[in-house]
């Protein structure tokens, strides 16, 4: 058991660490309500002397800003990709876990091996392919490379393997068709793993930068991270605006996280994300 002193030291250390984790956001939020000149003042102020929302206003209404569109694009792309990944990974994972057919192992290892291929290798061919198919600057172009995930298949196959085969057999004897078995019995039973996969996929997609940047040209088609970067690039050193924009991207994530946190951390931790 821990002594009083030990407990105090531990709490102190952890509190300092936790503070270091979140202070950039705290500072960013506080400062975003200050006027530009106050932000860059030396010596710096803590609380805003003159509270203002002008930075945020400018973010939305400045030339070159398409914040609304960027949010919309990110939302559509991340949601659709997450749904697709969850569904097709479950389908493939189920097949690999509960069915027997020739070359099954080869198919699985082929899919698994794609996890080893770094995205950068594929970006150039993708760009060439998509340009041919005239998918530049489209939402489909943004989403296509992420629609199915090998990691997802791996994770959900593992989840399905933990379900006893007798459940599938009982369902077959009950007269259910194969797809009904998948839809009504197997898929519902791996909900926690699907939730974890969904969260990981959504967050990963929301933050995706390299590919969306390459495939989009027009400002209104960009996703949030790409738009933010282009927008900030336009404004050079105007940190008060860049920072307000960054906040607008970060705050919703934090709020969603606060609301769903038990779910999110629980799912990721408990779905057995081990190598």
């Amino acid at each position: 058991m821990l002594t009083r002193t030990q407990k105090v030291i531990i709490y102190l250390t952890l509190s300092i660490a936790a503070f270091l984790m979140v202070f950039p956001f705290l500072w960013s939020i506080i400062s975003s309500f200050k006027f530009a000149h106050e932000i860059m003042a030396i010596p710096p102020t803590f609380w805003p002397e003159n509270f203002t929302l002008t930075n945020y206003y400018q973010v939305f209404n400045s030339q070159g800003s398409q914040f609304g569109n960027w949010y919309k694009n990110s939302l559509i792309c991340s949601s659709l990709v997450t749904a697709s990944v969850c569904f097709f990974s479950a389908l493939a994972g189920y097949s690999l876990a509960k069915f027997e057919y020739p070359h099954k192992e080869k198919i699985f290892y082929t899919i698994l091996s794609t996890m080893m291929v770094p995205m950068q290798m594929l970006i150039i061919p993708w760009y060439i392919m998509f340009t041919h198919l005239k998918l530049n600057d489209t939402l489909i172009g943004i989403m296509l490379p992420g629609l199915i995930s090998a990691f997802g298949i791996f994770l959900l196959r593992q989840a399905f393997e933990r379900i006893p085969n007798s459940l599938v057999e009982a369902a077959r004897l009950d007269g259910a068709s194969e797809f009904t078995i998948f839809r009504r019995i197997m898929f519902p039973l791996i909900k926690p793993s699907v939730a974890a996969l969904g969260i990981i996929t959504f967050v990963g997609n929301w933050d995706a930068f390299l590919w969306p940047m390459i495939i989009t040209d027009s400002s209104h088609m960009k996703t949030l991270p790409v738009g933010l970067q282009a927008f900030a690039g336009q404004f050079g050193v105007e940190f008060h605006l860049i920072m307000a924009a960054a906040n607008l991207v970060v705050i919703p994530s934090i709020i969603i996280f606060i609301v769903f946190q038990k779910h999110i951390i629980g799912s990721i931790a408990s779905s057995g994300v081990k190598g």
Partner: protein
Amino acid sequence: MAKVTLKNIKKKYPKAENYTVDNFNLDIEDHEFMIFVGPSGCGKSTVLRMIAGLETITDGELMIGDKLVNNLPGAKRSIAMVFQNYALYPHMTVRQNMSFSLEMNGMDKDEIIKKVEAAALKLDLGDLLDRKPSEMSGGQCQRVAIGRAIVRDPKVFLMDEPLSNLDAKLRVKMRAEISKLHTALDTTTFIYVTHDQVEAMTMGTRIAVMHAGIIQQCDSPEVLYDSPINKFVAGFIGSPAMNFFDCVVKKEDNGIYLEMENCFKIKVPEDREEKIISYKEKHVWLGIRPQHIYPDDTKDIEVVPGNTLKAKAVVVEPLGSEKFVLFETKSGFEFTARFDPRVSVKKCDEFNLTFDLSLSHIFDSASELNITL
């Protein structure tokens, strides 16, 4: 008509060297309670699963009623199965579990409700209908699994070691429940798989004893017990198991003897001499059940002088209603005897024992067939 006929059924897995089930022939009658029993790996579950349609039949014909069902999916064979681990759908309530198969077969919603309620009544599941499997005990889950099966009015009811996951007391209770169920469902044939010979003996009308994929003997419990066809069946049925003594047949002037070196030399009863005489000077197995071994001062049977052996008690198990004693001969051979509880036995006691040979069996050393039948 709910009879099941298996003709020359064989099963071989693609990567296996041998047949898991070889030339299985059995006619199961309408409304029988047929039990497949045998040690692990003997193929009993495989046969059951072939009847259920969960395994393909490599060779042979399977008929349910008079219909050839080899290529018919399990769901269409008018069968229902109870799995060892219940296989209840964890995310559904008992009611939904029981309704599922009926729903899959397109039954009308009102009909389904009626059937589920009727089955629940039969198995006393009324209070549990809205519970989920995780909220119930093993025994309750097992009853639900049975309920899920009978709600389909199957012709054949298959059970794959349904009681192995339950504790001893519950098992005894459920055995009676299942037997009562069999009586109640008078148009259904029961096929039951177990490795527990006590379960087999207490529940079945006929028992098929299996070993290495082959039926050794299929008969009623009494016949299996009294007239085992070979050493395997003799040693498998009955608890504690029959003792087997490796003896040599000796012909002497005044009769035929079975001699086990340094142990005993026992005179064979006259009515059996005829069957044994051809085994002169050959090895045979003498099979004696524990309850047919007595101390030589017993009043329960007629003691033939000379038909005794000396042994030392090594382990004594007083069970109240009887006493089991593990004996060891001078040459180190161990065997079990069942004594009346009033006989006083202590560890390391030396005893003179005698056998009731009229109830013994003698088996051919090579073929292991029962010579004395």
